[in-house]
């Protein structure tokens, strides 16, 4: 019947193409992908099929115990070279597969620490040559953007992609707002000009006398005073007309505040200082995301990255997005917020569907400051 109404048919087809009831179609032809991420201090390997993670192994699952009773007696972070073989093997064993059953290899080639990225790329090339299977090069930030859609081995959650969406990626190393237009099509709305949001939280915690990691500590202290904002620290660039972030000035504002307080006052005010700082960071993230929603008219929001495990951020973001009549998605499993190879594998699934394999392995090189724009098709 649509043949008679061509415009409508066109529209319908467009709509159809945007709704990815993809699980089934994907499963039929889905490739088994071995994914490697060594972008910073996590050596992580996953085996995925479609959007399902068959296995995911990261060194720090053990490294957490390295200090606290682990398996491999090396305390150095970023010692990827020593660990990669072990982690690859473990991921295959957990998935009950051998290398021969892998259809392609996915690897993060940026952004990140050059020497760390190199280890993953080298390993991917090695495996690719030994089993004669192609490589898919993935941008680490794409991984975070796809992280809310990663499923466990049973195919849950069933959440489907919704395009276009706005992605807020917040971690210790990154803070950016992205317009996720369609599969593999990205536009950067704004990013941090100096410190990342997670870094700001960690450094504030350190200035207040806490160890690492600082995020969970600030979260708890803030909750003890109901996330009050007594100090009203400046929210840098909040009034700017773009979607850029800056958290370095906020860090300096906390420094100045602390300089004028005595030790006793500081200790008495720890909770309020922590809470006010956290609010300054989160309110900035919220306001810019809201502005992005209003200016683009897009009301699906994805939030990924380590900072997104913070309950305060989750609750307030959810409230804001819901009030705007939108929907919000977070990664379903906590590990997906942090650097992990599972999300890299899921991006590779989509890239494989588009036939985006690396043609010549020799051309893959690490790109420490790789931008999402460079990966947009």
């Amino acid at each position, binding site marked *: 019947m649509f043949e008679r109404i061509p415009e409508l048919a066109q529209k319908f087809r467009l709509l159809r193409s945007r709704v990815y009831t993809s699980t089934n179609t994907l499963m039929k032809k889905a490739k088994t992908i071995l994914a490697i991420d060594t*972008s*910073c201090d996590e050596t992580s390997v996953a085996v995925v099929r479609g959007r399902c993670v068959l296995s995911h192994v990261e060194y720090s*699952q*053990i490294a*957490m*115990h*390295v*200090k*606290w*009773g*682990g*398996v491999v*007696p*090396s*305390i*150095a*972070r*970023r010692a990827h*070279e020593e660990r990669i073989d072990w982690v690859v093997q473990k991921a295959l064993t957990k998935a009950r597969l051998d290398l021969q059953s892998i259809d392609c290899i996915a690897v993060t080639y940026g*952004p990140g*620490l*050059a*020497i*760390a990225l190199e280890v993953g790329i080298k390993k991917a090339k090695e495996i690719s040559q030994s089993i004669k299977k192609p490589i898919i090069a993935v941008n680490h930030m794409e991984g975070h953007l796809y992280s809310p859609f990663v499923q466990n081995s049973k195919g849950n959650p069933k959440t489907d992609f919704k395009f276009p969406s706005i992605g807020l990626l917040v*971690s*210790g*190393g990154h803070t950016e707002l992205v317009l996720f237009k369609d599969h593999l099509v990205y536009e950067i709305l704004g990013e*941090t*000009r*100096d*410190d*990342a949001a997670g*870094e700001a939280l960690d*450094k504030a915690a*350190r*200035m207040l*006398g*806490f*160890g*690492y*990691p600082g995020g*969970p*500590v600030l979260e*708890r*202290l803030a909750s*003890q005073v109901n996330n009050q904002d007594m100090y009203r620290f400046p929210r840098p660039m909040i009034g700017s007309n773009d979607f850029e972030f800056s958290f*370095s000035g906020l*860090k*300096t504002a906390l*420094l*100045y505040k602390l*300089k004028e307080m005595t*030790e006793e006052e*500081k*200790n008495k005010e*720890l*909770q309020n200082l922590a809470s006010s700082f956290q609010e300054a960071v989160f309110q900035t993230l919220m306001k810019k995301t809201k502005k992005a929603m209003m200016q683009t008219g897009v009301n699906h929001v994805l939030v990924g990255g380590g900072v997104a495990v913070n309950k305060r951020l989750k609750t307030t973001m959810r409230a804001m997005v819901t009030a705007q009549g939108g929907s919000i998605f977070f990664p379903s499993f*906590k590990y997906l917020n942090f650097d992990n190879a599972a999300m890299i594998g899921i991006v590779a699934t989509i890239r494989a569907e588009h036939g985006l394999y690396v043609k010549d392995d020799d051309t893959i090189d690490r790109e*420490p*400051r790789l931008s999402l724009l460079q990966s947009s098709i």
Partner: protein
Amino acid sequence: MTRTITLSTQSIKQVINEVLQVLSSGGLVIFPSDTVYGLLVDATNEEAVKKLIEFKNRPPGKAISVFVADLNSCKKYVSINQKQSAVLSKLLPGPFTMVLPSIHTVQKLLESEKGTLGVRVPDFQPVLQLASSFGKPITATSANLGGSSPHYSIDSFIHQISQAKKDLIDLIVDAGKLPRNKPSTVLDLTESTVKTLRSGDISFEKSNVYQSHSAQETQNIGRELMQGLTKKYGQKPLVIVLKGDLGAGKTEMTRGIADYFEIEKIISPTFVVYYEYAICDSKSKFVHVDLYNIQEEVEFVHLGLSDYLKPGNVMVVEWGEKLGKLYAEFQKKAEVVFVEIMYERETRRKIIVNY
């Protein structure tokens, strides 16, 4: 034969008495906590600790934290300075394991290779009562075998282990299914062990002193500094070590230096340790390093920083005083300039450049 008793509000007193008896005689007890089920032994009894390590298949030398009744008792096992004490009193009791320097009053097997110990004051009355009546620290490791996930119910744990392991358990205290709280967050409150350099440690021929009143001015000083250095050293590999507290303006100075090479969009490399940038389409690289997160000297082995000391390359190292032993190597292979930025007041920084 392992005995199982049930923990309920009525039975607390009796249960604690039984557990105390088992712990005193060197036994291994499975006990609930505010997070997951834990494996408890007397942390001062060598035989008991060895039994625990055998049970967990844990290689010796890997740390195990201890339950302590309150903040005051922590001081009997770890050294706590005033600042750390303020921090602890805000967070404890709670789901945190605090890593601090051990004062070696527990079994050495429980400490880390660095001589630190994890202490835990859980937000869970039965454990606190137990620790307080026992008067000694009790191990606080989760009830699981090395590498597998922790358990929220006795059944799930018992099903996972072999009979030989079961025989090692002396008493199980069953409190039913625990709420699925995450295992405790480990917070490292120890200071970095990286030896830091002071400008007095190194001798320089010359030093210049500048004053900056704004971020922009700090950038300008960086740009001019670079201009002078390129004139002086040409293509020699160059390292600029930046020292200064959080918020002093190190990244601003780096921006100025990078701007000289027309490199824009400098962002903080704290998380990844360093970012590299190409210098004007040449093969030379501008490397922006930040050692803020480096905790141990051994980490340098895996960073490959020395590989960048090649002609034409420029490296800026924030928190460069943490280079430690590497500093001598840098001096041998490159021209090193040591810049210290000092906070004087909100609108004034003193910048000392040592050549």
